[in-house]
């Protein structure tokens, strides 16, 4: 089969591009200790019984260390519990998120916090808020008639 010389060059370019992307991502992920959630650490909850299941029976932000917090968040149609969150600059927050009704999104705009809040599942992410300001927390997964109004804010002072 005859392949044009320029076509060979273009195919080579494409393969090299793919190899570079995978290598950069691979080294970055490995150096950051990124892993898939461990199956042995899987925590399921009964979405209909959240009000009786710790820690979701008491949603809120709890201090667990020096400028370190655990934020237990329940996303519901159509809001977040707790609503507004205020933390000092440099706060390292461990978010623990679930939903009692439908799938919601939990994104903090301008940060790398962007996860799904799924009934029956507990999702977690940790982020350090170095820069003061107001951060929009929004639901980015369609959840019903009030989805566009489902947002709150996180204030870093």
């Amino acid at each position, binding site marked *: 089969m005859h392949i*044009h010389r*320029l*076509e060979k*060059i*273009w195919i080579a*370019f*494409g393969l090299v*591009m793919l190899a570079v*992307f995978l290598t*950069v991502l691979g080294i970055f992920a490995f150096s950051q200790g990124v892993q898939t959630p461990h199956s042995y650490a899987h925590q399921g909850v009964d979405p209909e019984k959240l009000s009786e299941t710790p820690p979701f029976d008491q949603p809120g932000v709890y201090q667990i260390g020096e400028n370190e917090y655990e934020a237990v968040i329940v996303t519901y149609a159509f809001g977040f519990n707790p609503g507004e969150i205020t933390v000092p600059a440099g706060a390292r927050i461990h978010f623990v998120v679930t939903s009692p009704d439908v799938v919601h999104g939990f994104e903090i705009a*301008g*940060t*790398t916090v962007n996860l799904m809040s799924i009934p029956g599942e507990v999702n977690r992410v940790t982020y350090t808020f170095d820069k003061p300001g107001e951060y929009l927390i929004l639901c980015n997964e369609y959840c019903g008639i009030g989805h566009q109004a489902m947002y709150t804010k996180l204030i870093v002072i």
Partner: protein
Amino acid sequence: MANDLQRQPANADGREAEPALWGTFAAVLIIGALFVAGWFGAFGLFLARN
């Protein structure tokens, strides 16, 4: 006459000429450059927000 429109131009030795692809090559390289720029742009945003 209709046949002339469908046949590739013939070389002196009767073989078909290779298609001239330099313009296509330039165009896909530009698109490839956009891919690379977009990829590193998104990666850069991720690093900045981390």
